[in-house]
């Protein structure tokens, strides 16, 4: 019997919601790491029992946690009792919580500056890990998207992290600026059809693509238009909130930008707007149905000044045509007096058929649909504000 696990990161800890494949009865485990901010948790596609979590605190900094048993127990990589790697005194030498920008002469980039809110230049400073993206094939390899914007990689299960510094060192870096939540690599997509191809999205810089496993990066923002920057069609500076790809059709990506929903059919070389009849094209999440590459989901938010659903109605919008024509999905969702937000990493789809769709809100609800969005249930109601939602199906 398959197990569905929904991994929920919140402002005050992590939770794991589990069910069988019927997805009708849910068990809630947690909080794990209670009191800490959990920006993201994600399981390895190569080993569902391997889960990584980003745990952080304004007081005590960044911690990486790992589970090898599907979330039952957790440890900081390198510090597990009996784990090898000790120094001559017998103490561990792990640096699992160290994210140091790579400024070395061999492969590093100088620590420069980026644009600050007031237009002045500001030094790059590590703050936290926003997103963890495990390799599609190796449970020990994970990419981490961090604030201030950079990408790191581990190949030893999280014990040590090395920056792939070409991204931070891109010549456009001095023009990148923080969005309201900071300047972070918040989305990482690995392309299983093209090994070595990685997409990242940065607020507020835009989307970048690497075709050599992070050794070099190309901005791919042509077609984006952002009225809030001096040149609306600039190569970088766009506040991209989230991008999504169906693994079977890797040349096609969908984007929820600060304003506008867009798609590309050529791996980011050109984007076209597909907002169509959405009630608002501002929002954070976007995701693609597991079996239907042209079925896309967004959750419109009223505006960048009012981060709640239009008219107080929480509606998921679904397009079955890859954009432009959208239908509201409301069955089971609050249709009055709802003023929650849904943050960029807080939507996920499972691999079952019919496809399950999940999203979490800043009001602490996690909603699930086991029929592609036709109807919804709150599978948990009163968590802390939800930062991220991922789902995995374990055999």
């Amino acid at each position, binding site marked *: 019997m398959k197990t569905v696990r929904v991994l929920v990161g919140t402002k005050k800890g992590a939770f794991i919601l589990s069910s069988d494949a019927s997805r009708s009865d849910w068990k809630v485990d947690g909080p794990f790491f209670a009191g800490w901010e959990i920006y993201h948790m994600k399981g390895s596609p190569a080993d569902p029992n391997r889960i990584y979590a980003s745990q952080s*605190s304004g*007081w*005590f900094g*960044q*911690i990486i946690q790992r589970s090898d048993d599907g979330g039952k127990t957790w440890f900081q990589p390198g*510090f597990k009792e009996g784990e090898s790697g000790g120094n001559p005194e017998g103490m561990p030498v*792990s*640096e699992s*919580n*160290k994210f140091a920008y790579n400024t070395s002469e061999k492969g590093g980039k100088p620590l420069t500056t980026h644009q600050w809110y007031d237009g002045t230049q500001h030094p790059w400073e590590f703050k936290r890990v926003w997103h963890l993206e495990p390799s599609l094939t190796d449970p020990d390899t994970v990419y981490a998207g961090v604030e201030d914007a950079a990408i790191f990689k581990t190949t030893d299960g999280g014990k040590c992290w090395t920056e792939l510094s070409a991204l931070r060192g891109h010549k456009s870096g001095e023009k990148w600026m923080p969005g309201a939540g900071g300047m972070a690599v918040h989305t990482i997509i690995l392309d299983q059809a093209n090994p070595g191809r990685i997409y990242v999205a940065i607020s507020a810089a835009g989307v970048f693509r690497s075709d050599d496993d992070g050794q070099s990066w190309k901005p791919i923002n042509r077609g984006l238009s952002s009225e809030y920057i001096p040149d609306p069609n600039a190569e970088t500076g766009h506040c991209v909130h989230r991008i999504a790809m169906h693994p079977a059709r890797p040349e096609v990506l969908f984007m929820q930008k600060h304003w506008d929903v867009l798609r590309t059919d050529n791996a980011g070389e050109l984007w076209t707007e597909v907002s169509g009849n959405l009630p608002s094209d501002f929002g954070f999440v976007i995701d693609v149905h597991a079996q239907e590459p042209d079925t896309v989901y967004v959750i419109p938010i009223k505006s960048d000044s009012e981060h709640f659903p239009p008219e107080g109605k929480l509606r998921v919008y679904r397009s079955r045509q890859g954009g432009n024509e959208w239908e509201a999905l409301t069955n089971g969702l609050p249709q009055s007096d709802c003023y929650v937000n849904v943050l960029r990493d807080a939507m996920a789809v499972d691999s079952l058929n019919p496809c399950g769709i999940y999203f979490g809100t800043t009001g602490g609800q996690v909603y699930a649909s086991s029929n592609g969005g036709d109807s919804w249930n709150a599978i948990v109601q009163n968590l802390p504000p939800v930062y991220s939602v991922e789902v995995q199906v374990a055999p």
Partner: protein
Amino acid sequence: MIRVTLPYHLRNLAGVKKEIEVEVEGVLTVKAVLDAVEVRYPMLKGTIREHDTKKRRAFVRFFACSEDYSTLTDDTLLPEKIARGEEPFMIIGAIAGG
């Protein structure tokens, strides 16, 4: 042995009860105590001081014998009562956020 108290979240990370003990050889300074804590509990590296600069994290504070050592240089000598184990060296999370 030097007694050290840790804030709640760091006790959980280190897997210890409220107070820990570390051995410090040589001159007893703030730096010497923090070095000893990080050697004994390496999972705390980066949570009290920055990894490379060893600068105190902004929302962490140090107290000894009712005195605030947070902003003093880390080679400041600690009191005899700390050296004798009569009082703990206190690492606390700053009160912030209501």
